[in-house]
Protein backbone atom coordinates (compact mmCIF):
# COMPACT_ATOMS: atom_id res chain seq x y z
CA UNK A 1 0.00 0.00 0.00
CA UNK A 2 1.20 3.51 -0.72
CA UNK A 3 0.46 6.44 1.55
CA UNK A 4 1.39 10.07 0.98
CA UNK A 5 1.55 12.87 3.55
CA UNK A 6 1.45 16.56 2.64
CA UNK A 7 3.29 18.88 4.99
CA UNK A 8 4.08 22.56 5.09
CA UNK A 9 6.91 24.44 6.68
CA UNK A 10 5.78 27.38 8.81
CA UNK A 11 7.27 29.80 11.35
CA UNK A 12 7.21 28.51 14.94
CA UNK A 13 3.92 29.13 16.72
CA UNK A 14 5.74 31.19 19.37
CA UNK A 15 7.29 33.49 16.74
CA UNK A 16 6.74 37.21 17.08
CA UNK A 17 5.31 38.33 13.75
CA UNK A 18 6.35 41.76 12.51
CA UNK A 19 4.72 43.57 9.60
CA UNK A 20 6.89 46.28 8.11
CA UNK A 21 6.45 47.98 4.78
CA UNK A 22 3.84 45.43 3.78
CA UNK A 23 6.23 42.54 4.48
CA UNK A 24 5.86 39.89 7.13
CA UNK A 25 8.86 38.66 9.06
CA UNK A 26 9.42 36.56 12.15
CA UNK A 27 12.96 37.46 13.20
CA UNK A 28 15.12 34.50 14.06
CA UNK A 29 12.28 32.23 15.15
CA UNK A 30 12.82 28.77 13.68
CA UNK A 31 10.81 27.40 10.76
CA UNK A 32 9.17 24.14 11.72
CA UNK A 33 6.85 21.51 10.36
CA UNK A 34 3.30 22.86 10.65
CA UNK A 35 2.24 21.43 14.05
CA UNK A 36 -0.98 19.96 12.62
CA UNK A 37 1.04 18.11 10.00
CA UNK A 38 2.92 16.22 12.70
CA UNK A 39 -0.42 14.55 13.41
CA UNK A 40 -0.80 13.74 9.72
CA UNK A 41 2.65 12.13 9.68
CA UNK A 42 1.77 10.19 12.82
CA UNK A 43 -1.49 8.97 11.27
CA UNK A 44 0.36 7.79 8.18
CA UNK A 45 3.05 6.03 10.22
CA UNK A 46 0.45 4.20 12.30
CA UNK A 47 -0.93 2.77 9.05
CA UNK A 48 2.59 2.04 7.81
CA UNK A 49 3.12 -0.13 10.86
CA UNK A 50 -0.33 -1.73 10.60
CA UNK A 51 -0.56 -2.60 6.93
CA UNK A 52 3.02 -2.52 5.73
CA UNK A 53 2.82 0.61 3.61
CA UNK A 54 5.33 2.97 2.05
CA UNK A 55 4.92 6.52 3.28
CA UNK A 56 6.07 9.33 0.99
CA UNK A 57 6.06 12.85 2.40
CA UNK A 58 5.80 15.85 0.09
CA UNK A 59 5.90 19.58 0.55
CA UNK A 60 5.50 22.55 -1.75
CA UNK A 61 7.86 25.27 -0.65
CA UNK A 62 11.30 26.80 -0.73
CA UNK A 63 14.54 24.83 -0.45
CA UNK A 64 14.42 25.40 3.32
CA UNK A 65 11.30 23.20 3.53
CA UNK A 66 13.65 20.23 3.17
CA UNK A 67 14.24 20.63 6.91
CA UNK A 68 10.58 19.88 7.62
CA UNK A 69 10.75 16.94 5.20
CA UNK A 70 13.80 15.65 7.09
CA UNK A 71 11.87 15.79 10.34
CA UNK A 72 9.20 13.62 8.71
CA UNK A 73 11.85 11.18 7.47
CA UNK A 74 13.34 11.05 10.95
CA UNK A 75 9.90 10.19 12.32
CA UNK A 76 9.80 7.23 9.95
CA UNK A 77 8.55 8.22 6.50
CA UNK A 78 10.18 6.23 3.71
CA UNK A 79 10.65 8.88 1.04
CA UNK A 80 10.52 12.68 0.78
CA UNK A 81 10.09 15.02 -2.15
CA UNK A 82 10.19 18.79 -2.32
CA UNK A 83 8.12 20.54 -4.96
CA UNK A 84 9.64 23.90 -5.68
CA UNK A 85 9.28 26.26 -8.58
CA UNK A 86 9.71 30.02 -8.85
CA UNK A 87 6.40 30.11 -10.74
CA UNK A 88 4.64 29.07 -7.53
CA UNK A 89 5.51 32.31 -5.72
CA UNK A 90 2.22 33.84 -4.61
CA UNK A 91 0.25 30.68 -5.41
CA UNK A 92 -3.17 30.51 -3.76
CA UNK A 93 -4.71 27.40 -2.22
CA UNK A 94 -6.35 26.43 -5.50
CA UNK A 95 -3.02 26.49 -7.33
CA UNK A 96 -1.38 24.67 -4.43
CA UNK A 97 -4.05 21.95 -4.53
CA UNK A 98 -3.55 21.46 -8.26
CA UNK A 99 0.21 21.22 -7.73
CA UNK A 100 -0.14 18.72 -4.89
CA UNK A 101 -2.61 16.66 -6.92
CA UNK A 102 -0.15 16.49 -9.83
CA UNK A 103 2.65 15.42 -7.47
CA UNK A 104 0.42 12.78 -5.90
CA UNK A 105 -0.36 11.38 -9.32
CA UNK A 106 3.26 11.39 -10.35
CA UNK A 107 4.17 9.40 -7.23
CA UNK A 108 2.05 6.55 -8.54
CA UNK A 109 -1.09 4.88 -7.34
CA UNK A 110 -1.59 5.74 -3.67
CA UNK A 111 -4.48 4.60 -1.52
CA UNK A 112 -4.41 7.40 1.02
CA UNK A 113 -3.14 10.95 1.29
CA UNK A 114 -2.95 12.52 4.74
CA UNK A 115 -3.16 16.24 5.47
CA UNK A 116 -3.04 18.34 8.62
CA UNK A 117 -6.08 20.25 9.77
CA UNK A 118 -4.75 23.63 8.73
CA UNK A 119 -1.56 25.57 8.25
CA UNK A 120 -0.84 27.88 11.20
CA UNK A 121 0.51 30.69 9.03
CA UNK A 122 -2.32 31.23 6.55
CA UNK A 123 -5.02 29.59 8.69
CA UNK A 124 -6.99 28.39 5.67
CA UNK A 125 -7.91 24.79 6.38
CA UNK A 126 -9.03 24.10 2.82
CA UNK A 127 -6.16 22.37 1.03
CA UNK A 128 -7.14 18.79 1.88
CA UNK A 129 -10.67 19.15 0.50
CA UNK A 130 -9.40 21.06 -2.52
CA UNK A 131 -6.72 18.52 -3.39
CA UNK A 132 -9.29 15.75 -3.04
CA UNK A 133 -11.56 17.60 -5.41
CA UNK A 134 -8.84 18.00 -8.03
CA UNK A 135 -8.03 14.29 -7.76
CA UNK A 136 -11.72 13.39 -7.81
CA UNK A 137 -11.27 11.46 -4.56
CA UNK A 138 -13.45 11.65 -1.45
CA UNK A 139 -12.31 14.05 1.29
CA UNK A 140 -12.55 12.71 4.83
CA UNK A 141 -11.77 15.75 6.91
CA UNK A 142 -11.00 16.10 10.61
CA UNK A 143 -10.58 12.41 11.16
CA UNK A 144 -9.97 11.45 14.78
CA UNK A 145 -9.48 7.72 14.30
CA UNK A 146 -8.95 5.19 11.52
CA UNK A 147 -11.08 2.20 12.49
CA UNK A 148 -10.16 -0.09 9.63
CA UNK A 149 -8.36 -0.04 6.34
CA UNK A 150 -8.26 -2.68 3.65
CA UNK A 151 -7.45 -2.72 -0.05
CA UNK A 152 -10.47 -0.78 -1.22
CA UNK A 153 -12.23 0.62 1.83
CA UNK A 154 -11.53 2.76 4.88
CA UNK A 155 -13.67 3.34 7.96
CA UNK A 156 -12.94 6.41 10.04
CA UNK A 157 -14.34 8.45 12.89
CA UNK A 158 -14.50 12.15 12.25
CA UNK A 159 -15.46 15.25 14.21
CA UNK A 160 -18.48 17.22 13.15
CA UNK A 161 -19.90 20.43 14.46
CA UNK A 162 -22.41 18.40 16.48
CA UNK A 163 -20.28 15.50 17.65
CA UNK A 164 -18.77 12.55 15.88
CA UNK A 165 -19.62 10.34 12.95
CA UNK A 166 -18.37 7.00 11.69
CA UNK A 167 -17.95 6.99 7.97
CA UNK A 168 -16.98 4.41 5.41
CA UNK A 169 -15.33 5.47 2.21
CA UNK A 170 -13.97 4.07 -1.00
CA UNK A 171 -10.23 4.27 -1.61
CA UNK A 172 -8.27 6.13 -2.74
CA UNK A 173 -9.19 8.94 -0.39
CA UNK A 174 -7.83 12.13 1.12
CA UNK A 175 -7.83 12.28 4.92
CA UNK A 176 -7.19 15.31 7.08
CA UNK A 177 -6.57 14.61 10.74
CA UNK A 178 -7.10 16.46 13.99
CA UNK A 179 -5.40 16.15 17.33
CA UNK A 180 -7.39 13.15 18.49
CA UNK A 181 -5.54 10.93 16.04
CA UNK A 182 -2.75 10.51 18.62
CA UNK A 183 0.36 12.33 19.80
CA UNK A 184 3.04 12.54 17.09
CA UNK A 185 6.02 10.31 17.80
CA UNK A 186 9.48 11.78 18.32
CA UNK A 187 12.12 11.12 15.70
CA UNK A 188 14.29 8.19 16.75
CA UNK A 189 18.06 8.48 16.97
CA UNK A 190 18.43 6.12 14.01
CA UNK A 191 15.79 8.06 12.15
CA UNK A 192 17.62 11.33 12.65
CA UNK A 193 20.85 9.83 11.36
CA UNK A 194 19.15 8.41 8.30
CA UNK A 195 17.30 11.64 7.59
CA UNK A 196 20.50 13.68 7.87
CA UNK A 197 22.01 11.67 5.06
CA UNK A 198 18.89 11.50 2.90
CA UNK A 199 18.98 13.17 -0.48
CA UNK A 200 15.65 14.84 -1.12
CA UNK A 201 14.78 15.30 -4.79
CA UNK A 202 13.20 18.55 -5.94
CA UNK A 203 10.48 18.50 -8.55
CA UNK A 204 9.59 21.53 -10.63
CA UNK A 205 6.25 22.12 -12.31
CA UNK A 206 7.84 20.85 -15.51
CA UNK A 207 8.75 17.63 -13.70
CA UNK A 208 5.11 17.33 -12.71
CA UNK A 209 4.13 17.88 -16.31
CA UNK A 210 1.80 20.79 -15.59
CA UNK A 211 1.60 24.43 -16.57
CA UNK A 212 1.63 26.99 -13.77
CA UNK A 213 -1.80 26.55 -12.17
CA UNK A 214 -3.89 29.70 -12.03
CA UNK A 215 -4.22 31.61 -8.77
CA UNK A 216 -7.34 33.71 -8.27
CA UNK A 217 -6.62 35.15 -4.85
CA UNK A 218 -4.42 38.20 -4.30
CA UNK A 219 -3.16 39.75 -1.10
CA UNK A 220 -2.91 43.46 -1.83
CA UNK A 221 -1.99 44.36 1.74
CA UNK A 222 -0.83 42.89 5.01
CA UNK A 223 -1.05 44.85 8.23
CA UNK A 224 -0.39 44.60 11.90
CA UNK A 225 -3.57 44.06 13.87
CA UNK A 226 -4.89 47.27 15.41
CA UNK A 227 -3.15 47.88 18.71
CA UNK A 228 -5.58 47.28 21.50
CA UNK A 229 -5.51 50.09 23.89
CA UNK A 230 -6.04 48.23 27.11
CA UNK A 231 -5.54 49.66 30.51
CA UNK A 232 -5.70 46.78 32.90
CA UNK A 233 -7.52 47.57 36.07
CA UNK A 234 -6.53 45.33 38.95
CA UNK A 235 -9.36 44.67 41.36
CA UNK A 236 -8.42 44.29 45.00
CA UNK A 237 -10.32 43.97 48.25
CA UNK A 238 -10.34 42.47 51.71
CA UNK A 239 -12.26 39.33 50.89
CA UNK A 240 -13.14 37.26 47.83
CA UNK A 241 -16.73 38.51 48.25
CA UNK A 242 -15.69 42.14 48.17
CA UNK A 243 -13.47 41.60 45.13
CA UNK A 244 -16.18 39.60 43.38
CA UNK A 245 -18.76 42.31 44.06
CA UNK A 246 -16.52 45.01 42.63
CA UNK A 247 -15.60 42.87 39.64
CA UNK A 248 -19.24 42.00 38.93
CA UNK A 249 -20.17 45.71 38.96
CA UNK A 250 -17.29 46.54 36.62
CA UNK A 251 -18.23 43.75 34.21
CA UNK A 252 -21.85 44.89 34.13
CA UNK A 253 -20.74 48.48 33.56
CA UNK A 254 -18.99 47.36 30.35
CA UNK A 255 -22.47 46.54 28.97
CA UNK A 256 -21.34 43.45 27.10
CA UNK A 257 -23.73 40.98 28.72
Amino acid at each position, binding site marked *: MKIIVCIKQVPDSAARIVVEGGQISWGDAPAIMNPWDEYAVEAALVQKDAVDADVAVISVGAESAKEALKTALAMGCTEAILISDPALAGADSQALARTLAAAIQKLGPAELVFFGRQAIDTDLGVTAA*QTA*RVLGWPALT*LVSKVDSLDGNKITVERSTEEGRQV*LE*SKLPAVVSVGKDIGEPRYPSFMGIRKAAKAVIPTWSLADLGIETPKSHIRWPA*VMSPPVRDITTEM*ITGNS*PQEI*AGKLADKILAEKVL
Partner: protein
Amino acid sequence: MSNKILVYIDQYQGTALPASWEALGAGRMLTNLYGGASLVVLVAGERSKEVAGQAFQYGADEALFADHATLADYRAEAYAAVLVKVARELAPLAVLLPTTLRGRELAAMSAIDLDSGILADVTALELQDGKVLATRQIYAGKALSKVVCDALPQIITTRGRAFEKPTVDPARSGAPTQVPAVLAEADIPTKILSHAAADGGVSLGDAAVIVSGGRGVANNPNLSPPTGLDDKQAEIWRAQQGFKMLGDLAGVLGGAVGASRAAVDAGYIPYEHQVGQTGKVVSPNLYIACGISGAIQHQAGMRSSKVIVAINKDPEAPIFKLARFGVVGDLYTLVPALTEALRLRLGK
Protein backbone atom coordinates in the same frame (compact mmCIF):
# COMPACT_ATOMS: atom_id res chain seq x y z
CA MET B 1 -23.13 37.15 -14.63
CA SER B 2 -26.32 37.75 -12.71
CA ASN B 3 -26.87 40.40 -10.12
CA LYS B 4 -27.21 37.85 -7.34
CA ILE B 5 -25.51 36.91 -4.11
CA LEU B 6 -25.87 33.29 -3.00
CA VAL B 7 -25.66 32.38 0.69
CA TYR B 8 -25.28 28.78 1.84
CA ILE B 9 -27.11 28.18 5.12
CA ASP B 10 -25.46 25.47 7.22
CA GLN B 11 -28.10 23.65 9.22
CA TYR B 12 -28.48 20.57 11.37
CA GLN B 13 -31.81 18.82 11.91
CA GLY B 14 -33.88 21.80 10.95
CA THR B 15 -31.92 24.44 12.85
CA ALA B 16 -29.51 26.79 11.13
CA LEU B 17 -26.16 27.23 12.83
CA PRO B 18 -26.11 30.83 14.14
CA ALA B 19 -23.13 31.68 11.96
CA SER B 20 -25.32 30.94 8.92
CA TRP B 21 -27.58 33.90 9.64
CA GLU B 22 -24.50 36.05 10.14
CA ALA B 23 -23.36 35.00 6.65
CA LEU B 24 -26.78 36.01 5.40
CA GLY B 25 -26.29 39.40 7.08
CA ALA B 26 -22.93 39.73 5.31
CA GLY B 27 -24.68 38.75 2.08
CA ARG B 28 -27.23 41.52 2.53
CA MET B 29 -24.38 43.94 3.09
CA LEU B 30 -22.92 42.86 -0.26
CA THR B 31 -26.21 43.16 -2.14
CA ASN B 32 -26.40 46.74 -0.87
CA LEU B 33 -22.80 47.45 -1.84
CA TYR B 34 -23.51 46.02 -5.27
CA GLY B 35 -26.46 48.38 -5.54
CA GLY B 36 -29.51 46.23 -5.04
CA ALA B 37 -28.43 42.76 -6.06
CA SER B 38 -30.81 40.05 -4.89
CA LEU B 39 -30.10 37.66 -2.08
CA VAL B 40 -30.65 33.95 -2.66
CA VAL B 41 -30.13 31.29 -0.01
CA LEU B 42 -29.53 27.57 -0.41
CA VAL B 43 -30.19 25.04 2.36
CA ALA B 44 -29.64 21.31 2.05
CA GLY B 45 -30.51 18.24 4.05
CA GLU B 46 -33.34 16.89 6.12
CA ARG B 47 -35.85 19.58 7.15
CA SER B 48 -34.07 22.12 4.96
CA LYS B 49 -37.44 23.41 3.77
CA GLU B 50 -38.24 24.74 7.26
CA VAL B 51 -34.92 26.53 7.42
CA ALA B 52 -35.38 27.92 3.91
CA GLY B 53 -38.74 29.27 5.07
CA GLN B 54 -37.09 31.03 8.02
CA ALA B 55 -34.52 32.58 5.70
CA PHE B 56 -37.17 34.91 4.30
CA GLN B 57 -37.65 36.40 7.77
CA TYR B 58 -33.90 37.02 7.93
CA GLY B 59 -34.11 38.91 4.66
CA ALA B 60 -33.64 36.40 1.82
CA ASP B 61 -35.28 37.38 -1.49
CA GLU B 62 -35.34 33.81 -2.71
CA ALA B 63 -34.80 30.52 -0.88
CA LEU B 64 -33.80 27.19 -2.40
CA PHE B 65 -33.75 23.89 -0.54
CA ALA B 66 -32.48 20.43 -1.42
CA ASP B 67 -34.09 17.65 0.60
CA HIS B 68 -33.56 14.15 -0.69
CA ALA B 69 -32.77 10.73 0.77
CA THR B 70 -29.17 11.01 -0.48
CA LEU B 71 -28.79 14.30 1.40
CA ALA B 72 -30.28 13.15 4.72
CA ASP B 73 -26.84 12.99 6.32
CA TYR B 74 -24.26 15.59 5.42
CA ARG B 75 -21.77 14.13 2.98
CA ALA B 76 -19.33 16.58 1.46
CA GLU B 77 -19.41 15.24 -2.10
CA ALA B 78 -23.19 15.09 -2.32
CA TYR B 79 -23.69 18.56 -0.84
CA ALA B 80 -20.89 20.15 -2.85
CA ALA B 81 -22.47 18.82 -6.06
CA VAL B 82 -25.75 20.60 -5.21
CA LEU B 83 -24.03 23.84 -4.29
CA VAL B 84 -21.90 23.81 -7.44
CA LYS B 85 -24.88 23.12 -9.67
CA VAL B 86 -26.92 25.94 -8.13
CA ALA B 87 -23.94 28.30 -8.36
CA ARG B 88 -23.47 27.43 -12.05
CA GLU B 89 -27.12 28.11 -12.78
CA LEU B 90 -27.38 31.35 -10.82
CA ALA B 91 -23.93 32.62 -11.80
CA PRO B 92 -23.86 34.86 -8.71
CA LEU B 93 -21.33 37.60 -8.01
CA ALA B 94 -20.45 35.91 -4.74
CA VAL B 95 -21.19 32.77 -2.76
CA LEU B 96 -21.08 33.24 1.01
CA LEU B 97 -20.86 30.47 3.58
CA PRO B 98 -20.35 30.52 7.34
CA THR B 99 -16.90 29.31 8.43
CA THR B 100 -18.31 26.19 10.04
CA LEU B 101 -16.67 22.83 9.40
CA ARG B 102 -19.16 22.08 6.63
CA GLY B 103 -19.10 25.61 5.26
CA ARG B 104 -15.32 25.62 4.99
CA GLU B 105 -15.27 22.27 3.26
CA LEU B 106 -18.02 23.14 0.78
CA ALA B 107 -16.33 26.44 -0.04
CA ALA B 108 -13.06 24.58 -0.63
CA MET B 109 -14.64 22.07 -2.98
CA SER B 110 -16.75 24.49 -4.95
CA ALA B 111 -13.79 26.83 -5.52
CA ILE B 112 -12.12 24.00 -7.42
CA ASP B 113 -15.21 23.01 -9.38
CA LEU B 114 -16.09 26.61 -10.24
CA ASP B 115 -12.46 27.49 -10.98
CA SER B 116 -12.52 30.42 -8.59
CA GLY B 117 -10.91 31.19 -5.24
CA ILE B 118 -11.86 31.48 -1.57
CA LEU B 119 -11.73 34.46 0.70
CA ALA B 120 -11.60 32.28 3.79
CA ASP B 121 -12.77 33.09 7.30
CA VAL B 122 -13.09 36.82 6.70
CA THR B 123 -13.91 39.37 9.38
CA ALA B 124 -14.81 42.38 7.23
CA LEU B 125 -15.98 43.10 3.70
CA GLU B 126 -15.91 46.18 1.48
CA LEU B 127 -16.13 46.79 -2.23
CA GLN B 128 -13.25 48.11 -4.33
CA ASP B 129 -13.35 48.44 -8.12
CA GLY B 130 -16.35 46.17 -8.26
CA LYS B 131 -14.62 43.41 -6.32
CA VAL B 132 -14.95 42.33 -2.73
CA LEU B 133 -12.01 43.44 -0.61
CA ALA B 134 -12.04 41.22 2.45
CA THR B 135 -10.04 41.31 5.67
CA ARG B 136 -8.80 38.14 7.31
CA GLN B 137 -6.46 37.19 10.11
CA ILE B 138 -3.26 35.32 9.41
CA TYR B 139 -0.65 33.88 11.76
CA ALA B 140 -3.42 33.29 14.29
CA GLY B 141 -4.35 36.95 14.40
CA LYS B 142 -0.78 38.21 14.75
CA ALA B 143 -1.30 39.92 11.38
CA LEU B 144 -4.15 40.91 9.09
CA SER B 145 -4.37 40.55 5.37
CA LYS B 146 -6.59 42.15 2.75
CA VAL B 147 -7.63 39.65 0.13
CA VAL B 148 -9.26 39.88 -3.28
CA CYS B 149 -10.64 37.17 -5.55
CA ASP B 150 -10.17 37.89 -9.25
CA ALA B 151 -12.59 35.24 -10.52
CA LEU B 152 -16.35 34.84 -10.25
CA PRO B 153 -18.14 33.81 -8.20
CA GLN B 154 -16.11 35.20 -5.35
CA ILE B 155 -16.38 32.49 -2.71
CA ILE B 156 -16.35 33.87 0.82
CA THR B 157 -16.58 32.23 4.22
CA THR B 158 -17.45 34.53 7.10
CA ARG B 159 -15.95 34.16 10.55
CA GLY B 160 -18.42 33.50 13.36
CA ARG B 161 -19.47 36.60 15.33
CA ALA B 162 -17.73 38.95 12.90
CA PHE B 163 -20.96 39.99 11.14
CA GLU B 164 -24.31 41.00 12.57
CA LYS B 165 -27.20 38.62 12.38
CA PRO B 166 -30.01 40.41 10.49
CA THR B 167 -33.02 41.34 12.58
CA VAL B 168 -35.91 38.97 12.08
CA ASP B 169 -38.93 40.43 10.34
CA PRO B 170 -41.84 38.10 11.15
CA ALA B 171 -43.96 39.87 8.55
CA ARG B 172 -41.74 38.64 5.71
CA SER B 173 -42.42 35.26 4.19
CA GLY B 174 -42.06 33.40 0.94
CA ALA B 175 -42.27 30.01 -0.66
CA PRO B 176 -39.02 28.06 -0.80
CA THR B 177 -38.16 26.39 -4.10
CA GLN B 178 -36.97 22.81 -4.17
CA VAL B 179 -33.82 21.92 -6.08
CA PRO B 180 -32.92 18.31 -6.86
CA ALA B 181 -30.04 16.24 -5.56
CA VAL B 182 -27.24 15.88 -8.08
CA LEU B 183 -25.41 12.66 -7.20
CA ALA B 184 -27.16 9.29 -7.17
CA GLU B 185 -26.42 7.14 -4.11
CA ALA B 186 -24.13 4.92 -6.21
CA ASP B 187 -22.00 7.94 -7.13
CA ILE B 188 -21.46 9.08 -3.54
CA PRO B 189 -18.16 7.62 -2.35
CA THR B 190 -18.98 7.60 1.37
CA LYS B 191 -21.54 6.11 3.71
CA ILE B 192 -22.34 7.27 7.24
CA LEU B 193 -22.39 4.25 9.53
CA SER B 194 -23.36 6.08 12.72
CA HIS B 195 -23.18 9.37 14.47
CA ALA B 196 -23.19 10.58 18.03
CA ALA B 197 -24.06 14.08 19.11
CA ALA B 198 -21.83 15.66 21.72
CA ASP B 199 -23.43 16.77 24.99
CA GLY B 200 -25.31 19.91 23.84
CA GLY B 201 -24.37 23.14 25.59
CA VAL B 202 -23.40 26.37 23.92
CA SER B 203 -20.78 25.91 21.24
CA LEU B 204 -17.62 27.93 21.79
CA GLY B 205 -17.69 29.68 18.44
CA ASP B 206 -21.16 31.11 18.99
CA ALA B 207 -20.87 31.90 22.70
CA ALA B 208 -21.19 35.53 23.80
CA VAL B 209 -19.46 34.66 27.09
CA ILE B 210 -16.67 32.15 27.64
CA VAL B 211 -15.27 31.11 31.00
CA SER B 212 -11.98 29.33 30.44
CA GLY B 213 -9.77 27.29 32.73
CA GLY B 214 -6.13 26.32 32.55
CA ARG B 215 -3.73 24.16 34.43
CA GLY B 216 -4.47 26.22 37.53
CA VAL B 217 -7.90 24.64 37.76
CA ALA B 218 -6.34 21.47 39.15
CA ASN B 219 -4.59 23.39 41.87
CA ASN B 220 -6.82 23.06 44.89
CA PRO B 221 -5.13 21.19 47.70
CA ASN B 222 -8.24 21.54 49.88
CA LEU B 223 -10.34 19.21 47.76
CA SER B 224 -9.98 15.61 48.85
CA PRO B 225 -10.61 13.16 46.04
CA PRO B 226 -12.37 9.84 46.65
CA THR B 227 -10.06 7.12 47.90
CA GLY B 228 -8.52 4.67 45.49
CA LEU B 229 -7.37 7.21 42.92
CA ASP B 230 -3.71 7.44 42.01
CA ASP B 231 -2.01 10.85 41.85
CA LYS B 232 -2.81 11.49 38.21
CA GLN B 233 -6.44 10.44 38.64
CA ALA B 234 -6.73 12.62 41.74
CA GLU B 235 -5.36 15.58 39.81
CA ILE B 236 -7.90 15.05 37.03
CA TRP B 237 -10.68 14.64 39.57
CA ARG B 238 -9.73 17.95 41.20
CA ALA B 239 -9.59 19.68 37.85
CA GLN B 240 -13.00 18.34 36.93
CA GLN B 241 -14.47 19.75 40.14
CA GLY B 242 -12.85 23.03 39.17
CA PHE B 243 -14.29 22.96 35.67
CA LYS B 244 -17.75 22.29 37.17
CA MET B 245 -17.29 25.47 39.18
CA LEU B 246 -16.37 27.35 35.97
CA GLY B 247 -19.43 25.76 34.38
CA ASP B 248 -21.62 27.30 37.11
CA LEU B 249 -20.24 30.74 36.34
CA ALA B 250 -20.72 30.17 32.61
CA GLY B 251 -24.26 28.99 33.36
CA VAL B 252 -25.18 32.22 35.14
CA LEU B 253 -23.88 34.18 32.16
CA GLY B 254 -25.43 31.91 29.53
CA GLY B 255 -21.94 31.16 28.26
CA ALA B 256 -19.69 28.25 27.37
CA VAL B 257 -16.63 26.71 29.03
CA GLY B 258 -13.23 26.95 27.36
CA ALA B 259 -9.80 25.65 28.28
CA SER B 260 -6.11 26.03 27.64
CA ARG B 261 -4.18 23.37 25.83
CA ALA B 262 -2.37 22.45 29.02
CA ALA B 263 -5.73 21.61 30.62
CA VAL B 264 -6.77 19.58 27.58
CA ASP B 265 -3.45 17.75 27.33
CA ALA B 266 -3.60 16.87 31.02
CA GLY B 267 -6.95 15.20 30.43
CA TYR B 268 -9.03 17.65 32.48
CA ILE B 269 -11.50 18.43 29.70
CA PRO B 270 -12.09 17.29 26.11
CA TYR B 271 -10.29 18.90 23.18
CA GLU B 272 -13.55 20.45 21.89
CA HIS B 273 -13.11 23.08 24.60
CA GLN B 274 -9.59 24.15 23.68
CA VAL B 275 -9.10 27.80 22.82
CA GLY B 276 -6.00 28.91 20.97
CA GLN B 277 -3.85 28.51 17.94
CA THR B 278 -4.41 24.77 17.78
CA GLY B 279 -7.90 24.94 19.24
CA LYS B 280 -10.78 27.28 18.54
CA VAL B 281 -10.40 30.94 17.76
CA VAL B 282 -13.13 32.81 19.62
CA SER B 283 -14.20 36.40 20.06
CA PRO B 284 -16.90 36.55 22.71
CA ASN B 285 -18.09 39.74 24.35
CA LEU B 286 -16.66 38.55 27.64
CA TYR B 287 -13.78 36.10 28.18
CA ILE B 288 -12.92 35.13 31.75
CA ALA B 289 -9.56 33.34 31.99
CA CYS B 290 -9.08 31.39 35.21
CA GLY B 291 -5.73 29.81 36.05
CA ILE B 292 -4.42 30.43 32.54
CA SER B 293 -0.97 31.97 32.17
CA GLY B 294 -1.69 33.45 28.74
CA ALA B 295 0.91 31.84 26.46
CA ILE B 296 1.11 33.38 22.99
CA GLN B 297 -0.64 30.34 21.47
CA HIS B 298 -3.54 30.76 23.88
CA GLN B 299 -3.74 34.49 23.20
CA ALA B 300 -3.99 33.71 19.49
CA GLY B 301 -7.38 32.16 20.14
CA MET B 302 -8.95 34.78 22.37
CA ARG B 303 -7.24 38.13 21.97
CA SER B 304 -10.07 39.63 19.94
CA SER B 305 -12.59 39.11 22.76
CA LYS B 306 -14.27 42.39 23.69
CA VAL B 307 -13.67 42.34 27.42
CA ILE B 308 -11.11 40.02 28.99
CA VAL B 309 -11.03 39.25 32.70
CA ALA B 310 -8.08 37.37 34.20
CA ILE B 311 -7.99 35.55 37.51
CA ASN B 312 -4.56 34.20 38.34
CA LYS B 313 -2.40 33.68 41.43
CA ASP B 314 0.67 34.99 39.70
CA PRO B 315 0.74 38.78 39.30
CA GLU B 316 3.35 38.36 36.54
CA ALA B 317 1.16 36.11 34.35
CA PRO B 318 1.16 37.46 30.77
CA ILE B 319 -2.62 37.11 30.56
CA PHE B 320 -2.96 40.30 32.65
CA LYS B 321 -1.47 42.32 29.78
CA LEU B 322 -4.54 41.51 27.68
CA ALA B 323 -7.07 41.86 30.45
CA ARG B 324 -9.42 44.76 31.02
CA PHE B 325 -9.85 43.58 34.61
CA GLY B 326 -7.48 41.44 36.60
CA VAL B 327 -7.60 39.78 39.98
CA VAL B 328 -4.54 38.28 41.61
CA GLY B 329 -5.72 35.43 43.77
CA ASP B 330 -6.96 31.89 44.09
CA LEU B 331 -9.57 30.99 41.51
CA TYR B 332 -11.15 28.50 43.91
CA THR B 333 -12.32 31.28 46.21
CA LEU B 334 -12.84 33.98 43.57
CA VAL B 335 -14.87 32.09 40.99
CA PRO B 336 -17.69 30.96 43.34
CA ALA B 337 -17.85 34.46 44.82
CA LEU B 338 -18.07 35.99 41.35
CA THR B 339 -20.78 33.51 40.37
CA GLU B 340 -22.81 34.54 43.41
CA ALA B 341 -22.23 38.26 42.87
CA LEU B 342 -23.35 38.04 39.23
CA ARG B 343 -26.28 35.78 40.08
CA LEU B 344 -27.57 38.42 42.51
CA ARG B 345 -27.05 41.31 40.13
CA LEU B 346 -28.57 39.53 37.15
CA GLY B 347 -31.51 38.33 39.24
CA LYS B 348 -30.92 34.64 38.43
